[in-house]
């Protein structure tokens, strides 16, 4: 087991190293000059431009830029945002909790709806109930998220005045973005739930329980749910990773101050220190959640360790 953990973690770290190299290289390839973007439109002198370029370290060779980025990273110093001069660690500390909060809300919502619909569908497979439940879920994933988000604002904020349209503050602010973000995960969780339930319901012990004359509800709740839970939990773990990283469009539409908006903004203004940090942070979430899920799986199912 220890060897498996070690291998999995070293793999995760290697992936992150590759991501860090890729982001530095891609930023260098991507068109757009950060200095010009900062000074464009003003009567800047060539001297001022050269000075700023030097201050930002852009006149150094790429590998030196990379090494100083990694060096800073190891010391816990991610530099300062070129846009607003704030330490990048501070920027991350601002957006991380916000995005985590939104993701957890979305995860809770999608679990509730997804597991519920999945169970309903599994109890009566290939009936009208099943078809309607699945179609509802799939309709949800079939609406482009930015359109869905804007329609939610239009209905619940502009027409009904029930919920705030955007921004952050109270729990009400989270309802609409969490709903928009959750639709995609609902579909995956629902189908996973339906699949594991169908499997479990066909197992002998469930049939036995039914034959013993236990009420349908008891069977579902006591026996089936328990056994169907493991694969569902796995999917939930992966969905959290997806939600944390996938909130760019949602955060943009709802003006929600999280990781996705920060990244979009940083990319548009070629704020390299912020882009590097955010990309690495997103990758780290993804890689760690993945490794965590794998380890959990290995713990639950010993066969995997020796595969």
């Amino acid at each position, binding site marked *: 087991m220890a060897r498996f953990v070690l291998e999995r973690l070293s*793999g995760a770290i*290697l*992936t*992150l190293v*590759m*991501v860090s190299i*890729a*982001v530095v290289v*891609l930023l260098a*390839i*991507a*068109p*757009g000059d950060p200095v010009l973007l900062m000074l464009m439109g003003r009567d800047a002198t060539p001297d001022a431009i050269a000075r700023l370029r030097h201050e930002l370290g852009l006149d150094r060779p790429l590998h030196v830029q990379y090494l100083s980025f990694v060096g800073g990273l190891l010391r816990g110093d991610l530099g300062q945002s070129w846009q607003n001069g704030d330490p990048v660690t501070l920027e991350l500390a601002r957006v991380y909790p916000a995005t985590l909060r939104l993701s957890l809300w979305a995860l809770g919502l999608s679990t509730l709806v997804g597991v519920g619909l999945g169970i309903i569908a599994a109890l009566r497979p*290939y009936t009208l109930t099943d*078809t309607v439940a*699945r*179609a509802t879920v*799939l*309709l949800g*994933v*079939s*609406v*482009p*998220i*930015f*359109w869905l988000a*804007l*329609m939610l604002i*239009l209905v619940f904020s*502009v027409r009904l005045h029930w919920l705030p349209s955007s921004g952050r503050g109270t729990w009400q602010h989270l309802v609409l973005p969490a709903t928009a973000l959750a639709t995609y995960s609902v*579909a*995956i969780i629902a*189908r*996973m739930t339906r*699949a594991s339930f*169908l*499997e479990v319901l066909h197992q002998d012990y469930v049939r036995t329980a039914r034959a013993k004359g236990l009420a349908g509800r008891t069977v579902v709740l006591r026996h089936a749910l328990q056994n169907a839970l493991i694969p569902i939990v*796995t*999917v939930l773990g*992966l*969905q959290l990773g*997806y939600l944390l*990283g996938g909130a*760019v*469009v949602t955060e*943009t539409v709802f003006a929600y101050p999280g990781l996705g908006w920060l*990244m*979009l903004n940083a*990319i548009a203004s070629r704020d390299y220190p912020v*882009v590097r940090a*955010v*990309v690495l942070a*997103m*990758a780290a979430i*993804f*890689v760690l959640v*993945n490794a965590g*899920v*794998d380890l959990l799986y290995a713990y639950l199912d010993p066969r*995997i360790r020796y595969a």
Partner: protein
Amino acid sequence: MQRTGRLDVFADEPRRAGAARRRGLLWVILTRDRAAAVGAVLIAGLLALAVVGPWFAPYDPTRQDLQARRATASREHLLGTDEFGRDLLSRVLVGARYTLAASVVAVGIGTAAGASLGLAMGYFGGRLDRMATRFVDMLLAFPYLLLAIVVVGVLGPSLQNAVLAVGITSLPIYVRVARAATLVVRQQEFVAAALAIGGSHGHTIRRLVLPNVLGPVVVTATVGMAHAVHATAGLSFLGLGAQPPVPEWGAMLSSGRNYLLDAPHVATVPGIAIVVAMLGFNLLGDALRDALDPRMR
């Protein structure tokens, strides 16, 4: 280790399904599963629209009529006009082709490159597998948006480049699916036997491995079509997608979003088109996946 959230259900259980049997299977699915039938009908409709749609377009989809901007439905313009006074019906009809082509190409890039890489990784294993796994993990962990911006930034914004970006970002899914399916087949005795009697790798892959990998990949690709439509629309929303005046549905929806209050039809018309197309792919893909999953039978 092949779990990407949505596709893993079947990935570890590849089918040995010959072409004839698969056709039979599809028929079974369509007759048993109403959702699948609806999906198939929607996709058939979309295909028909892509082929003949432009012939029925009453106007040139790019012709502007600035005096008749954002007009609601009328006898001249059955679905109204957009912000440049272009006929929305014509744009939707002609746009079907762009939208469908865009997703086919994006999925094509994903399957062609991704599935063959995954197959090679699963079949040959060893160092190639380990290195490629790192690469795929990196791609997966990398925010697709930054990748899209670099691709579109270097090559310039256009539908083609957006499609390329979507294709590249969908690679890991196909790699994983193909690799997992290959791994299972590789361990089967008939593969070892084929090699033992002197079969070449090429022959073994073509005759024994590929047929078993194809099923999961096709299912993934079906759902992947919906994903590609969505992702392309998302890039248009961020200004990285199709360039005007191309009537790609995602770009139309995204430019219509500013008129949700005064002229909602500008967004609603392409929006519904997108939803219908995505729903079709999702319904069909979902049913196919069930059918290929032994636990569902």
